[in-house]
């Protein structure tokens, strides 16, 4: 039983990025920089499939 913690680490990185971009998005919204808001929102949305792929790859590596 060999487990890999690489996917776990990657997912934690994704979560960190989510937090960063969410905060950035909200701040940019209230600073009225709307294009930055949209960029941050898109990144946040894209991070979800990335997280899902990491998970899919990660569970195959045994548990």
């Amino acid at each position: 039983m060999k487990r890999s913690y690489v996917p776990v680490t990657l997912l934690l990185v994704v979560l960190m990025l989510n937090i960063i971009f969410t905060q950035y998005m909200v701040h940019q919204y209230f600073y009225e920089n709307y294009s930055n808001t949209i960029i941050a929102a898109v990144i946040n949305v894209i991070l979800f499939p990335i997280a899902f792929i990491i998970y899919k790859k990660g569970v195959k590596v045994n548990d």
Partner: protein
Amino acid sequence: MSDKNNKIPFNEDNYTHNINRNNERKLDRRGFMKTLVGAAGVFAVSSLPWGALAAKELSGLGDKKYPKQKIAKVDSLAIGDSVDFAFPGEHDSAILIRLSEKKYVAYQNACTHLRCPVFWKKDEGEMICPCHHGKFDVNSGEPTAGPPRRPLPEIQVKEENGAVYAVGVKRYEA
């Protein structure tokens, strides 16, 4: 079922022998990753309304049209002087400043800190908020000192037939 449980007393000193709670609440690696993916999903979904609102602002759908409004006669306003008016609503106080022969700027003059009225200080060439000494750049409305962090909303003005009109409220661009 064996008749093990029917013996009274049990021939063990452990009365919880059939309760096995080992690992009952263990969060294994897989479960932890599932939680993280779920969190990413929540972040993604909660980003959507912000993106939508921002897109709405960008596309100008949120911009309102206001009827143009006369502010002052050109000859009643010397270069470097300012006049207060209200635009677009009668309670949205605003200030018009004549910077040069042809250059007028107008802002809604409620300070972006706590909404004190900002006034024009001619000899310092700055707009000043008396409440907490906030200062604004007269050309852009950007805050230059003090607590305000957001620019004053700019009002678009037009000179026509010897008078200055307010025609709209400009969106602040980064």
